[in-house]
């Protein structure tokens, strides 16, 4: 490779790794510093994207072709196909987890009436004796942790 190409590769590497790290960091910031669980979920999506970028960047080689054989020519240099396969898997896994999280989020909002992590944590950490009824939904005299009847909670 020419010195120019090497320099380009170096800057490319910095840009990609830097971008991946910043994406991860911003995502974690959203998860850690924000109180709304929806925002936490968005942060999670960002973190997963950042990790995917990192993985693809690992397999990259400058001046190499995409890992698809065109016209039976097999001896051109190709980028590493393995991380790409991994990232494909990781993307789909990410969507699955995100979908489940969304489902849980909907139920959390429905049950507690809030998406604030502080409120949720307060409810979860409540001592069994004085479990505070969440968001005023429980009627006095009923056990605080009654099972929510299917379809009847609002």
């Amino acid at each position, binding site marked *: 490779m020419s010195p120019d190409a090497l320099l380009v590769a170096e800057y490319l590497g910095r840009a990609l790794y830097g971008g991946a790290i910043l994406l991860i960091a911003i995502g*974690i910031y959203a*998860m*850690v510093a924000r*109180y709304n669980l929806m925002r*936490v979920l968005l942060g999670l999506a960002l973190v997963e994207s950042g990790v995917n970028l990192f993985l693809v960047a690992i397999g990259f080689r400058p001046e190499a072709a995409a890992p698809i054989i065109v016209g039976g020519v097999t001896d051109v240099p190709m980028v590493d196909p393995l991380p790409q396969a991994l990232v494909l898997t990781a993307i789909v896994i990410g969507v699955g987890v995100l979908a489940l999280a969304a489902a849980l989020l909907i139920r959390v909002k429905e049950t507690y009436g809030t998406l604030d*992590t*502080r409120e*949720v*944590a*307060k409810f979860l*950490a409540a001592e069994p004796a004085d479990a505070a009824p969440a968001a005023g939904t429980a009627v006095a005299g009923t056990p605080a942790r009654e099972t929510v009847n299917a379809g009847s909670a609002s």
Partner: protein
Amino acid sequence: MIGLLDTLLVLALLTTVGLYVFGANRFAGYIGMAAYAAMTVIVVLVGQTLSGGETAVPSAMAFTVLGYPMTWRIDGLGWFFALLTTGAGFFAAWYMSGEWNEAQPNKRIQHGTLALNVLAMLLLVSSGDFLSLFIGWEIVSWAAFAMMTQLGGPAATAALRYLLYALAGAMALFAGILIVRSATGSFAFEDFAAAVPNLPTATKWVLFVLFTAGFGVKMAIVPFHLWQAPAYSFTPGASSSFLNAVSARMGLFALTLVLIKLMGPALLAGMDIAYTWFDARSALLWLTAITMIVPTYIALMQTDARMLLAWHGIGQGGYMLLGILVGTPLGLAGGLLHTFNYATYQMALMLAVFAVVHRTKTADLDELGGLITRMPFTYITLLMGIIGLAGLPPMNGFVSKWMIYKSLLNTAQPLLLIAAFIGTLGTILSVYKLIHNIFLGQLRLEHREVKEAPLSMLLPMLTLAGIGFVTGWMPGLALSMVDIAQSALGIGLQPHHLGGVDLPNGSLNMLWVVGVLIAAIGVGALIFYFLGNRRWEVSQYDNYAGGHFLSADVRYHFSHEFYPGLARVIGPWYRGWVVKMERGLQTLVAVLGDLSGGVFRFAHTPFYLLVAVSLGLLWVGLFGKI
């Protein structure tokens, strides 16, 4: 091959199962008596084998788990404690065989746990290596817990406290045996005894501290003593007497085994503490001195008869360990003999106190008095018991204490001797409080109809007191048993004869002492009864004081705050620092618990992940190889 030891253990096991199954039966006490008597006979047979020249009687029982072999065998030392155990079990069962048994709501638990304790102790004293020693130790601890906790309420609280102490001790012990194994490559006693002189000093110290602390908890050496008195006192009568008489002595057994038999007093004396005059042995000796004094004066302050005696038990343990740690044949014999003697008189005392409790429903020393007229035989038992406890002739306690004092003198330890005397002084004062507040003085109105304890309870009490007298009169009887134990320790035997011991600088012959004493009493009686008998009997209330006639509703029996002057003198010393330490530890655990729990209640849990990753990567950057 089923040997004597196997028979003994199987019999103990069958007794446990049997008494648990038939424990509610009204003959359970007799079944127990028969079983313990049979066990005692077997133990005596084992003793004959041992005195016949065998070093140990092996058991056929042996397991190998995960490459660790476990064996059981009984040697002289174990035999001595086994005899105490089965004997104490026999008397406890006897006590429980009649009226006491009828009155108890939880007969099955009482009989079952007693048998379980006997079994556990037999297993412990016959352990053949450190692993089986630890297993036996744990079983003994938990069996005692089962016995203590049975009445619930304050008993459960006290038992829980005991349990935590015992478990902390057991964990120290666990660490100790594992260090022994990694240092010597096996759990075997012989390997340890062979390897210990060559171990690094640090290892020796670690082992010494771990074993002393671990076994010392059971012995209730200060500062590990807080649990014992309440735990023993809130246990039902016969069980409590059993615990008082022999349970804590398991710690003594194990300490003797490890410190004297395996490590040896010379080795301990060689472990100097830098910048002080102390070495491992003398430091422990002074700890026992504190154990003799402090609990005895705490006993003085008790208002519950059971607590008073139980606190004495702690102090008496100090005497035994003192004698054993002196390390000469005389001291060892004194310590071991004191163990035997203590078992006889302490059990008699506890049984007598519980007989009083059985009749009057209280053990509060402020609520009793004058029972000598109602329960004279119980009074005699108690009197003989406290003479033994105080270490006065003609009872056996005198002989063993004399031997311990003598061994201290012979090894030039006058300060320890003074400490022992201070302890004895406290003992005498407090046992007087015991007998005065219960039996002397004014009989309370509500106790006027109290009857003497039933025969089923009186007989074991009187028998025990009798044994105490006989072995005080002819200490050679007990000393020949001590011989067997001593022969297993490798320190040498203390020559003795039926009446006591002969030493170059002063001998003791109890045959003479008792003879002179009886003669003197006889002379006194002669003078009293025949030469000038001016006495006549009057009722307690046919009397006057300060110009007023006394009536039954006026309390002139002085029992509350019995030693006010003494309390003022020792009060400033009585700070309860150990109690404060215990509370501090509890608070510390609670605070740490709240801190840990708070970690888990944090609203933003991913934050921890962030912190952990950042700090972890920092650590990787700092310490990882580049």
